[in-house]
């Protein structure tokens, strides 16, 4: 069914990577629309500026796949928001474009997929863990949502770099969730489904958009999953039906 939520996110401090395209952009729009204070990250300054103006969110230019960008990103996120309750790692790399069988995948393309989809979220989460744990100690809860894929679970030919990196991210999320349960920081790994996004168009150029999910529908589902994992939201504020 068409999801319609009235989740009030006033005061919630959320960071979104990959915030100028596809699911990340839909998340920035949906989150700001519900009153959350949002900082988003993307690589292209012009796009960051455009989306920051459109949504009122704090726009930050950087590449989660680049080690030296991570601490400056964390600094700007917590600096602009004053802390952090939710981190959404949405930025993703397909690896080789067009998609390729593993035997035809350049090592550098696999490394790039791992850098953006696995190591980047790991580094950024680590740099922001202090802020997230502080939010949990204050009773607001803390959530890291890592955007996954059915390619993390199923073996699809030609999706090797992407699938392997997303599988690793999914397992990383599960282990992190075990380790930090005592701190009150929850990790979610969510498959948003096959969406009509620029990334999907790169992967499957001839897909019929009509058969694909709208990214804003997926964004609503992710926000509901986050709200369900936050103690303050779970109790009262989620009114939407899914």
């Amino acid at each position, binding site marked *: 069914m068409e999801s319609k939520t009235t989740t009030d996110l006033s005061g919630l401090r959320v960071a979104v990577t990959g915030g100028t395209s596809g699911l990340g952009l839909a998340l920035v729009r949906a989150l700001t629309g519900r009153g959350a204070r949002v900082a988003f990250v993307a690589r292209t300054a012009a796009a960051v500026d455009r989306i*920051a103006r459109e949504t009122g969110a*704090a*726009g*930050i*230019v950087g590449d989660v796949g680049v080690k030296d960008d991570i*601490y*400056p*990103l*964390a*600094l*700007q996120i*917590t*600096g*602009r928001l*004053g*802390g*952090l309750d939710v981190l959404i790692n949405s930025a993703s790399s397909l690896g080789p474009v067009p998609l390729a069988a593993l035997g035809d995948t350049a090592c550098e393309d696999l490394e790039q997929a791992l850098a953006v989809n696995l190591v980047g979220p790991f580094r950024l989460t680590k*740099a922001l*863990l*202090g*802020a997230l*744990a*502080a939010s949990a*100690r*204050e*009773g607001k809860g803390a959530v890291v949502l890592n955007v996954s894929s059915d390619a993390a679970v199923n073996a699809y030919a030609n999706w090797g770099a992407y699938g392997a990196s997303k599988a690793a991210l999914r397992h990383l999320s599960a282990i992190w969730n075990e*380790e*930090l349960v*005592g*701190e009150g920081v929850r990790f979610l790994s969510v498959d948003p489904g096959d969406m009509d996004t620029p990334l999907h168009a790169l992967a499957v150029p001839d897909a019929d958009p009509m058969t694909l999910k709208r990214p804003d529908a997926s964004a609503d589902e992710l926000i509901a999953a986050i709200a369900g994992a936050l103690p303050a939201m779970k109790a009262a504020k989620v009114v939407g039906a899914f």
Partner: protein
Amino acid sequence: MIAAARPQAGPTKLLFVDARGDMRHVKSSALANLMRAGDIVVANDAATLPASLHGTHAPSGAPIEIRLAARRSFDEALRFTAVLFGAGDHRTRTEDRPPPAPIAPGDRLLLGPLIATVEGTLGHRRLIALRFEGAPDAVWAGIAHHGKPVQYAHVPEPLALWDVWTKIAGPPVAFEPPSAGFVLDWSMLAALRSRGVAFATLTHAASLSSTGDLELDRRLPFDELYHIPRATAAAINRAKAEGGRVVAIGTTVVRALEAASAFGIVRAGSGIATGRICPSTRLATVDVILSGVHTPGESHYELLRAFTSDAILRRAADVLEAHDYRSHEFGDLVLIERAADHRSAHPSTTSIPAAQLSVCNPMPGQAPPGRMTEAISCAKPSVSSRVTRASARAAP
């Protein structure tokens, strides 16, 4: 004392000085073993800004370095108090750096991608109020990419942000790292939890530890903003009521908690820590302090004198020296329990706001030069020292 010249230079040592003055050496990773069920460990979760910005003083064209040192409120992102330096960088000792070009209100400072306007000087030609031009997003980006962590000549290699952020670092409001917090990691927090020891954080905007200028150094520590979350205040008050000890990870935690203590209770909320903690301070809240290794004369050492006697501290200093403990922010640690007979448990302590008790001011003319040898004397505030403190706070 050996100065620790590199971050994470091997395992750190910890000297535990108990309430009777007995001492023993432990590995700092075993800190949790020194805590008891019911205790609460409180740390400063401030992340450290890259507060050193190099550039040019526009009117003169002369090179300049500014070190951000204070903010008026946590919400004020564009205006700072800053200390100025002339040519050179951290590899020259601060006291040997040439002075900056003369500064006047309205002067512009070109700092990489950032432009700052001098709003005024604050009672000293090297201490200014400034305002960054531009939108908050651009100013934060400029600081993130152009700023470097403040560092001193004893650590020659350039520090990165990951060197100066503790594992628990959250809001980027400190100007130098709250370095006792380097000992904490996630497995230690789990160990504390499993022992029934509570853990809480506050945010304290630790300022600069040295300016290299005799007169300015006498005004250290600058007034520092702090914020104590409701959950933290409640957890501390609960632990104290049930007989647990409050263990401060670092001197900044002591400053914040003692500034926020009144009538035996820690109040939640934001404030400014203005006073010094020194031998005459009657501690209202903190029972145990974890600190770096400091030598007599430093303001941090003076703070330790509020916890235990000079005789015990002298013996501890001998032990630290004999066992090659390393000083400075990446060095070793001491854990000091408040001595049972040391200005504690005074009947009036819990009924008088701490701020009225801990009035300690530097005495003009007594501070020898240098970061390591700053001499501080605790005294009743004179009118002139009150004026000095007030002007340090003043911002246009």
